[in-house]
């Protein structure tokens, strides 16, 4: 299935956002996620199904002004 993760086209077999994060190696990482512009809390990632063409954001802390 083709989706867009952080702006880049990605192939994935993950069914849920949780699976995707694990697959991408973010299991223990301190991250936050959004799908198609909507925030998805950590607790909801397991139920959040992923569909072809979804735009997914996976973000982490960074320097800011």
């Amino acid at each position, binding site marked *: 299935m083709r989706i867009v993760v*952080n*702006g880049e086209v990605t192939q994935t077999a993950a069914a849920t956002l949780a699976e995707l994060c694990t697959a*991408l*190696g*973010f299991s223990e*990482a*301190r*991250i*936050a*996620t*959004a799908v198609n*512009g*909507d*925030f998805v*809390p*950590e607790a909801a990632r397991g139920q959040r199904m992923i569909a072809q063409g979804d735009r997914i*954001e*996976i*973000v*982490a*802390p*960074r*320097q*800011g*002004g």
Partner: protein
Amino acid sequence: MKLHLYGFEAASRLLLGTAQYPSPQVLHDAVKASGAEIVTVSLRREGARERTGQRFWELIKELGVRVLPNTAGCRTVKEAVTTAQMARELFDTTWVKLEVIANDDTLQPDLFGLVEAARILSGEGFDVFPYTTEDLSAADRLLEAGCEVLMPWGAPIGSGQGLANPAALKSMRAYFPETPLIVDAGIGAPSHAAMAMELGYDAVLLNTAVAKAGDPAGMAEAFAQGVSAGRKAFLSGLMEPRDMAVPSTPVAGTPFFKLDNAS
């Protein structure tokens, strides 16, 4: 008297940004030297390999300061709101420095999007620190929207120009005597920070002027003193500037004084 922001009490009236430092060590030293108890941070896309964000998060935790996540780069209400929601989970805080940018050359706030996003986020329990201008009509609506703090710009972000419109900042202070007002952006030198505090502002938030200094830690200390100097001066009652000169040394008793050379 301390600074109160959404129930948090800070002795330091300098808030510092964490971006643009030459190295994590320099950032660490600058924050320490600044005495800042609140630092701004952001969130960005994470790569699984680099794990940049994870390392940064460790650094911040060590600093033991309060973090204020921003929504830098957001151009729409939707982007800003989702970014704030992600930030709340990521940084485990209800605080957010709300930026909705109108224009890339001046990076000035979109006042309309800002008020709308502030209303939504306040409704969701966020403590919103809006990056705004000295405009009073936007300020009124931000307070109605639930903001308890206002952060007008001094000058465009990163410009280091200082206070572009002191008269407008004075009006804002006079119009909102009770609201905590923080000058955010445009501060380039301690004299600018001191001037903001002398006008009665409650605090100053800056980043570039420290991060891009030759010696960031030294500059951070300089700003800490400048902010403190301006605050003390405000509390101590500044003299009014005068158009004409007035002798400081007493005139009476001047030797050699004769009526014919009296002025």
